[in-house]
């Protein structure tokens, strides 16, 4: 019999004075050496489960707690989180807040210093973990100077240095590029293989399926518990729980096959065995290209903060009116810096940016706001008003809209994002998906011609992601030009019409979505990986963008 390293018995918790139980009578366990994935829609109680399991709730989050949490068969109730460090390690979603040291080495040492670890052992562990996580070359760097993905890896490494028997991770991969995501999963896999226990919360089902077992939560309760191939086998069930079904599972479900392959290779094997033959790609009528009038023109733009580390290295591109463009690239490739030059927020060191042929620095950043609407990655960095109405009206007033026209404009913007009727709500109590939509509404109200969104789907569950992207498709069809920045190839494949691939401050590829996704060497040069359906399609010489296209080819 395997022993349970962690066990929760009848655990319930409600935050503050709230009546609603964030988790309700949950029974949950992780055996020694087991890798458990925890999934579910936003607000299902996944983070609360992690917090209860690590003792963070109820110590840090006040509320009504009941039930028992045991680690190594001993109850942890009443123990301080600090006392549990070294046994339980927790990696949080917001990696920025976990880093505070002068350099990477000291960041890694901090936890071990607290546990009075001997200096020699500290150095050994730091070197080992840094190599494992790929931070070896960065030991003297300031954590704040690292890219998002490197920071996220550092947050994980700083916890791994404590050698915890139980590692709990709450969305540790949101800012990693696909290659780094896979690497992180390999590390978690290895940890479990060497006897540690791992609990991983993620929306990323393509990687979740590698866990030994999956626990699915809904409304604070565990609704399913078992192997990925059993739990996620029904695509509709996945969607109902805020998850994208793993693409190979969806494909096999569409083809009426019982198997649920965990990888593209496995899928190919089964398809060959069952005698499936792919028909040549039916000629696809992709949505035709827009008018061709250039809206934003970037000419040989160079940018750096310090001359020895250039951020943009001669970028030239043209965005046409009415297009739906995706800037794809790994973290630190210069995507965000590039879009900031569109609005004259940043001035290129050399090269020029034009809006409809006029240099943007002549128009100026605050006037450009009416032409190009920006939605930054973190909606919390722009929301400030006491209610939704005031928040949306802010931009309109700044641009001198007559007061009597404002209510109508606000209502229209809120309707467009599906938040109508929320005018009196305080933005800060909204869930993340809604705050993100509100940020879009704020920008949309000023009726810009172009809408630029930086990572619009990060941290959202499947349904929220689809909602957000459908909203953009809708706005695009109304004539807005859409530019999104993302490192999710899946999102680009499903929604973009044109893709630019940015790597180390250079555009290394540009073309229609179908053209770009077919070039796997180009993608891998930028540390990107095409979604499973695209890769499987490639094996049959097909250029498909979605599971349904691929399924059609097999019928």
């Amino acid at each position, binding site marked *: 019999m395997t022993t349970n390293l962690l066990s929760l018995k009848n655990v319930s918790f409600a935050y503050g004075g709230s009546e609603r139980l964030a988790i309700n009578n949950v029974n949950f366990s992780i055996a020694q050496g087991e890798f458990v994935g925890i999934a579910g829609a936003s607000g299902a109680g996944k983070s609360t489960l992690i917090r209860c399991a690590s003792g963070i709730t109820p110590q840090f989050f006040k509320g009504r707690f009941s039930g028992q949490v045991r680690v190594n068969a001993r109850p942890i109730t009443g123990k301080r989180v600090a006392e549990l460090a070294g046994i339980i390690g927790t990696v949080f979603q917001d990696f920025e807040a976990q880093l505070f040291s002068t350099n990477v080495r000291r960041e890694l040492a901090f936890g071990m210093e607290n546990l009075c670890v001997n200096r020699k052992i500290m150095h050994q562990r730091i070197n080992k973990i840094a190599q494992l996580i790929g931070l070896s070359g960065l030991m003297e760097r300031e954590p704040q100077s690292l890219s998002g993905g490197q920071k996220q890896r550092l947050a994980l490494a700083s916890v791994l240095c404590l050698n915890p028997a139980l590692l709990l991770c709450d969305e540790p991969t949101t800012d990693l590029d696909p290659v780094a995501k896979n690497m992180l999963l390999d590390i978690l896999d290895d940890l479990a293989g060497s006897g540690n226990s791992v609990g991983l919360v993620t929306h990323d089902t393509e990687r979740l399926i590698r866990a030994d077992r999956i626990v699915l939560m809904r409304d604070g309760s565990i609704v399913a518990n078992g192997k990925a191939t059993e739990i996620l086998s029904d695509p509709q069930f996945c969607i109902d729980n805020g998850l994208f079904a793993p693409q190979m599972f969806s494909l096999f479900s569409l083809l009426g096959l019982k198997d649920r392959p965990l990888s593209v290779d496995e899928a190919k094997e089964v398809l060959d065995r069952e005698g499936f033959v792919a028909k040549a790609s039916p000629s696809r009528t992709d949505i035709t290209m827009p008018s061709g009038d250039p809206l934003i023109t970037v000419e040989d733009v160079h940018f750096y903060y310090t001359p020895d580390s250039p951020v943009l290295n001669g970028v030239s591109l043209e965005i046409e009116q009415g297009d739906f463009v995706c800037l794809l690239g790994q973290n630190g490739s210069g995507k965000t810096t590039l879009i900031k030059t569109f609005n004259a927020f940043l001035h290129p060191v050399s090269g020029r940016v034009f809006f409809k042929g006029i240099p943007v620095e002549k128009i100026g950043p*605050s006037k450009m706001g009416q032409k190009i609407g920006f939605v930054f990655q973190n909606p919390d*960095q*722009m929301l400030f008003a006491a209610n939704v109405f005031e928040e949306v009206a802010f*931009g309109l007033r700044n641009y001198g809209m007559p007061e009597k026209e404002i209510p109508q404009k606000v209502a229209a913007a809120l309707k467009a994002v599906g938040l109508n009727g929320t005018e009196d709500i305080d933005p*800060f109590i909204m869930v993340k998906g809604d705050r993100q939509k509100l940020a879009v509404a704020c920008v949309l109200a000023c009726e810009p011609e172009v809408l630029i969104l930086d990572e619009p789907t990060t941290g959202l569950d499947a349904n929220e992601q689809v909602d957000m992207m459908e909203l953009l498709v809708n706005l695009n069809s109304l004539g807005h030009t859409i530019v999104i920045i993302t490192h999710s190839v899946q999102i680009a494949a499903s929604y973009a019409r044109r893709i630019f691939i940015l790597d180390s401050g250079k555009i290394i590829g540009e073309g229609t979505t179908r053209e770009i996704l077919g070039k796997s060497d180009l993608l891998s040069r930028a540390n990107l990986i095409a979604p499973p359906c695209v890769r499987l399609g490639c094996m049959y010489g097909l250029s498909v963008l979605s599971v349904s296209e691929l399924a059609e080819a097999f019928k």
Partner: protein
Amino acid sequence: MSLTFYYPSGGFFERVHPVSKLICLMASFVPPFLGNEPLEVFPYFSFLLLAAFFAQAGANLRRVYKLMIILFVMSIVLWAFFYRGKSALFTVGRIVIMKESLLYGVTTGIRLNCFILSAIIFLTSTPIEDFTYGLSKLGMPFAASFALTLSFRLTPLFMETGQAIVMAQKARGLDLDSGGIIKRIRHYVPIIVPVLVSGLRRADQLAVALESRGFGKTKKRSAISEFPITWRDYVLISFILVICFVMGAHHFS
């Protein structure tokens, strides 16, 4: 772009034990009070300035020299009003400028800049962790010294967040520079609210992250860095003591 003052140079000051450095920092605040005339404090100021370049604090000086000039000018202007002198020097409109007040203002201005220079040298050559270590070695509980130095860690982060927020609001048409004084202050509301909210949120998360990594588990703590006491410690401490002694002898004689 570095956000903190610390500049890893591996030089003389960096290799002095943090406790010695803290003692010297405190001792370096004494000499400015041992001179009453500009000419008595100016040599010490020039010495600190040289020391600052020796400590490779040039880049940091460039960041604060405006503040130093403002302090200097403010000191002269303020003391011209508040320090009573005897001998009139010249008049500006209806205000009579006294020789003594002017000299006192200049002296105080140099003193203030001496403090800044000492602090810059210390911060340039000392990682925050060593600062914390030094304070706790001097008897301050680790939690207290960590909290004290936390402000040095968090200020640059807040500034970074602040810049991001300013950019986000400017994109919504916020014009910070228009209108009268009241209107201008009101313009900062859309900046201050998100800065505070994200600051509070961050502090909450930091508390959890610190404890998860064993912060405060035991009173004793080990340290990754080694701090051997070398000739540098003796040289630096003796140097400061000699300066204090020489200036003190001159002052009290």
